[in-house]
């Protein structure tokens, strides 16, 4: 009985639904698969109610569905002409203070504001007024901040505090000049995890190392696993031609879509010019380039010679905690079955 008390029922667009008390209208609508547009709402962050895009009509009154709890008997309309008009005006207002440079924006094609402008077919804003112009500050090599594109939704502030536990950024200044930035506009405590980039709905925060490296539609995305620590974070590598230019992570992964500085920004070593590109064999004390045939023949001959003269236990192998399971399996099999020794280990066995 106790449980039943916490259950309420309401109607959304004529459909009845029962939910736990405390559930927001937005969450209830999503259960019914009714889509309500949002900009500041993020499923992994607490509600803000800043952007007003998610307004719905309750008894003729517009309310923000992301912050309003569902109530018993409530009748909600998510897309009446009245609401759609209001919503269009809200998006229009946001765009009135947003640079019109989608043509060169990194987020073009993956921008939530651009999507809404498209949905509501907003070409030239009705509202004209002052625009915020900020001097560019180039304080760090990871996060490109273009605060003129910021819609002050606050997702970045929340993810930094609620998820990352850092609080490196917050709202600063007042009124029209309100801006999100680190204290004194200097990155004092930032861990450069890039979580803020992940949640930013617009092109206000983008990955600096990826700038100008490829448009969204030219990018191949491949799901794989991070090569750094043992967390095993799921990565989506974004490749343009033969270069990995950016990293993201699926929201429903074991790492919940969050990454650290190494996973997010630390993968350009793949395309480093320092990569070894050819086998090397030491001749007269110097390592010189060789063909695979030469390297294989030389290596196999020397190993055979040592095995035959000194026995298999004169040979050992150190494997790698960086390599795959399959490679490690083959490596120990090589030492045991092909060479004939159990001299095989790896540095991180402890």
């Amino acid at each position, binding site marked *: 009985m106790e449980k039943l008390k916490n259950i309420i029922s309401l109607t959304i667009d004529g459909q009845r639904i029962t939910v736990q008390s405390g559930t927001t209208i937005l969450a209830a609508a999503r259960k019914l698969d009714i889509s309500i547009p949002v900009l500041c709402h993020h499923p992994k962050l607490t509600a803000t109610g800043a952007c007003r895009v998610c307004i719905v009509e309750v008894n003729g009154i517009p309310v923000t569905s992301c912050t309003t709890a569902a109530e018993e008997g409530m009748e909600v309309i998510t897309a009446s002409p009245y609401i759609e008009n209001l919503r269009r005006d809200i998006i229009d207002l946001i765009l009135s203070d947003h640079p019109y440079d989608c043509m060169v924006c990194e987020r073009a094609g993956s921008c939530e504001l651009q999507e809404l402008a498209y949905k509501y077919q907003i070409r030239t804003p009705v509202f004209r007024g002052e625009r915020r112009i900020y001097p560019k500050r180039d304080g760090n090599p*990871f996060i490109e901040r273009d605060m003129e594109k910021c819609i002050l939704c606050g997702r970045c502030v929340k993810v930094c505090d*609620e*998820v990352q*536990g850092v609080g490196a950024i917050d709202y600063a200044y007042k009124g029209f000049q309100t801006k999100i930035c680190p204290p004194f506009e200097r990155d004092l405590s930032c*861990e*450069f995890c890039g979580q803020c980039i992940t949640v930013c709905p617009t092109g206000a925060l983008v990955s600096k*190392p990826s700038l100008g490296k490829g448009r969204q539609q030219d990018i191949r995305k491949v799901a*794989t*696993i991070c*090569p750094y*620590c*043992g*967390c*095993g974070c*799921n990565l989506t590598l974004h490749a343009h031609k033969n270069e*990995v230019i950016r990293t993201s992570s699926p929201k429903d992964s074991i*790492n919940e879509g*969050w990454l*650290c500085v*190494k996973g997010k920004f*630390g993968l*350009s*070593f793949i395309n480093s010019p*320092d*990569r*070894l590109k050819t086998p090397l*064999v*030491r001749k007269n004390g110097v*390592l010189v380039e060789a063909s695979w045939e030469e390297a*294989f023949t*030389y290596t*196999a001959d*020397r*190993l055979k010679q040592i095995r035959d003269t000194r026995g298999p236990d*004169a*040979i*050992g192998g*150190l*494997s*790698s*905690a*960086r390599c*795959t*399971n*399959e*490679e*490690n399996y*083959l490596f120990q099999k*090589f*030492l*045991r*079955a*092909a060479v*004939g020794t*159990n001299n*095989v*280990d790896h540095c*991180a*066995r*402890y």
Partner: protein
Amino acid sequence: MAGLATVFGSGAMTNSLAEIENNDALFVIGSNTKENHPIVALRMIKAVRKGAKLIIADPRRVPLVRFAHLWLQQRPGTDVALLNGMMHVILNDGLTDSAFIAERTEGFDENFRKNIGECTPESAEKITGVPKEKIVEAARIYARAERAGIYYTMGITQHSHGTDNVLSIANLALMTGNLGKESSGVNPLRGQNNVQGATDMGCLPNLFPGYQRVTVPAVRRKFEELWGVKLPEHEGLMANGMLDAALEGKLKALYIMGENPVLSDPDMSHTKKALSSLDFLVVQDIFMTETAALAHVVLPATSFAEKVGTFTNTERRVQRVRRVVDAPGLAMKDSHIIMELSGRMGYSMPYHHTEEVFQEIGKAWPAMAGISYSRLDEEGGLQWPCPTADHPGTPFLFKNGFPRGKAAFSMVQYTPSIEQPDAEYPFTLTTGRMLFQYHGGSMTRRVAPIEQVAGEPYIEINPEDARDLAVTNGTVVTVASRQGSLTVKAQVSARPGRGVVFIPFHFREAAANVLTSSKGLDPICRIPSLKVTAVRIEKT
């Protein structure tokens, strides 16, 4: 690893990462989680925000301390005394889980209790430097929790008594019944993407894939049948044993795949000397490392983004690695290199696709038999044990018992680390990683933005010690140990306690492992004591 395997019968994280947020107490010891396992730390922060109590034991004020209810700043190398002190309180207060002890463990006898009885919080305070009130409080928080998890890394294992440290941790969990349940367990966090996998795959001198002993005739017969060849009967040499054997002239050739021991092993001059005394050194890597520079043959290999396969993460989860780009130049897949060499050595390994290797692993080790590439593609990762194709995988271990039957308590007494400070070397150096860099740096140091913010080595010195040494931020100091010396800039920081200094080991220009010792290995698993080295500091 050896420690946990002794106690339970297998050595791995007992719980899953997702379970962390439902802990009601977390005891993090010897792990700088926020910097070294940043995503695990996010789960811990989540747990704290949901009301869990977080206890951290670390000689340094690591960043996660900001979220902790209690921080115990033990002197480096004194963990056993701290843990025994906590167990003393638990025993005295009657906070043990007697039903669990009776049903699922052995060795909780008179001698064990007597040993713990002698380790009072007062005596622990003397050894560890942690006030006894904090030891008492930590013990009570941990023991009274419903779902308590212990998390540790190299701060526990890289000691001349690393195995003892692990055994103590296991004792603490067993005594309070914090095992075999969701969100309760003993969790070593793995430091590299596939440490768990490399260990599972039997890249160990005493174990075949799946922790099966090479000295057991029946096991050997099984692998001889699977591989169609006669196999060696005796155990091989461990990594540091191989280096010693090279110096003695017994080991003549070494094949190193994707490791850089010159930078990552203790006592660099010893490592270099050992590698240089080999008749033949083959190094397979993606970069010209300090180790590759000593090789007779260098084989260009592929990075994770250029091949397919699987990694096993710290929670035993097997996940797919997929190819994104083509390897540069003539660089070849590691598996192809091994297969080619093997064929030329007279043992053919005819695999057509990486998945065939994976299928063979399932034949060699039943715990992975139920995993296939298609299941991984569909389900996104599976945690071993997963013995059959319809098995969902195992989020937490030991629900229905321990592999060895009953888990064993071990009697552990505090032994001081081999390297002790003295008048000549008055400071205790501890080494580790920082957030931005990774290991020997062959990957991260080639990432320009990372180098821009964290491209310089440093030594953390406590402000009071800095004052005594007349050192300020940026002062160049010479750090000398009994093994070697280096010069590095000082970073005056309240992170380490008095008398303790810290150097990250990523930087070849001030390689911390010039200072560390390759002697004083743990008697059981032979891990070097990288966390405790006596050093002297002088202004240059």
